[in-house]
């Protein structure tokens, strides 16, 4: 897909946990309405890249530019306010809040057509409406994942960071997540997708970055990646 104006540019970022140097100059770029998959084995820096973008672990060096503005040193709440949404790995549902409260607590209104509100989220995930008054902890794992997706959409993001959205979901729901990603893309939302499910990632993305030991080692189209057995085995941990 030919790139339109970049929504986000990550330029040569170096991120550390204490003394541990995790990201060694990661660069990536995502255009408006594009879905970019960030793939790699566990422990290679995918989630750290996501955390660097949203401001949880700001990089010590390098720059993150969102819609032309440097957001490298902004706090996570300011970054979220500018329109970057996060679906974190492990769901991170607020346990003491009800389903509805989880959805509305960080809601950010949008005047755009096709924006998300409580009703549209309930339309995508009807089970959340049935469970609206239950506490987040009483939901099943899969329902919590739906809630995490719904909560992020309620912030009406222009760029959505999805960290393993299919984790813990039944096969039929994984397909649904694929459809949701395509629908979000059609709605103009740009998405960075971190995913272990290679088929889901390749079926939904326009472009893929493969990260290994904190370095982007390959940049491939989904078709190129699916045909590249060496990359799949060596960098993605796909069993032969």
């Amino acid at each position: 897909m030919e790139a339109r104006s970049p929504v986000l540019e990550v330029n040569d970022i170096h991120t550390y946990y204490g003394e541990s140097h995790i990201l060694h100059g990661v660069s990536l770029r995502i255009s408006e309405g594009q879905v970019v998959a960030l793939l790699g084995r566990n422990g290679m820096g995918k989630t750290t890249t996501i955390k660097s973008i949203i401001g949880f672990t700001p990089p010590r060096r390098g720059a993150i530019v969102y819609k032309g503005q440097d957001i490298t040193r902004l706090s996570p709440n300011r970054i979220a306010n500018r329109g970057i949404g996060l679906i974190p790995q492990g769901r991170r549902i607020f346990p003491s809040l009800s389903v509805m409260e989880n959805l509305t607590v960080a809601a950010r209104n949008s005047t755009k057509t096709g924006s998300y509100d409580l009703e549209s989220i309930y339309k995508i995930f009807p089970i959340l409406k049935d469970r609206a008054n239950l506490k987040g902890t009483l939901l099943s794992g899969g329902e919590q994942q739906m809630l995490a997706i719904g909560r992020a959409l309620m912030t009406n993001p222009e760029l959505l960071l999805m960290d393993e959205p299919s984790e813990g979901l039944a096969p039929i729901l994984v397909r649904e997540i694929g459809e949701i990603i395509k629908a979000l893309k059609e709605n103009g939302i740009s998405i960075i997708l971190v995913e272990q499910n290679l088929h889901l990632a390749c079926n939904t993305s326009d472009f893929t970055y493969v990260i290994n030991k904190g370095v982007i080692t390959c940049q491939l189209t989904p078709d190129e990646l699916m045909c590249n057995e060496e990359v799949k085995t060596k960098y993605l941990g796909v069993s032969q």
Partner: protein
Amino acid sequence: MDILRIENLNKNFDGVDVLHDVSFTVQQGERLLIIGPNGAGKTTLFNIIGGQLPATSGRIFFREQEITQKPAYQRAHLGIVRSFQILSLLPNLTVLENALLTFFGCSRSRFELFKDWHSNKEVVDKAGEALKMADLWEMRYEPVKLLSYGDQRRLEVVMSILLDPKLLLLDEPTNGLTSEESTSIVRLIHKLGKGVTVLVVAHDMDFVFEVAERINVLYYGGLLASGSPDEIRNNPKVKEIYMGNGGS
């Protein structure tokens, strides 16, 4: 011989029927997989077997002894051990310390916690053996928080094994893992002898069919089907409600 017998189990949360009238048995040494759509009640079933939640009604027997009213720690002492869907490790302790802590949790040595853990050779050897089996030995001095997600998941399975289970309940042990890492969990399960009965909740169909001797399908809190992997794979209703069009 049945190691576990569930009779007419019901669970209701604030008016929501999460499990209704679930009955099944598990044979000694069996590998039983539990699958079903999200929200079907799989984790709740595990919580009730493990004693983390009380049943609303129904009875549970472990080796012919009724355990319905027993608290979780007494079930753990009987040999019912479970892992959780969300990782439950101690992030600031090392891999080895996490492993040792589990071991002390169920042994009489637990009151010697103020001693240097590493000085108990027998315990360290046993933990070491399990860590080597899971390819975690090389990182035994790493704080758990620095481990990758896949390694943390494997450590959790190792910790469950160190508790010397008779009945091991694994709740989505391959979540978030690469297929290679999932294969290493399969190997860990295969290495357990038939002295350990294993119940697993999982969504990863490759993993399910690799491990399962029998599969139970939960649907809206009820037992929809039970059968061999082939029977379940070809069950049209299971395809419709769980797998979607044609498998994983």
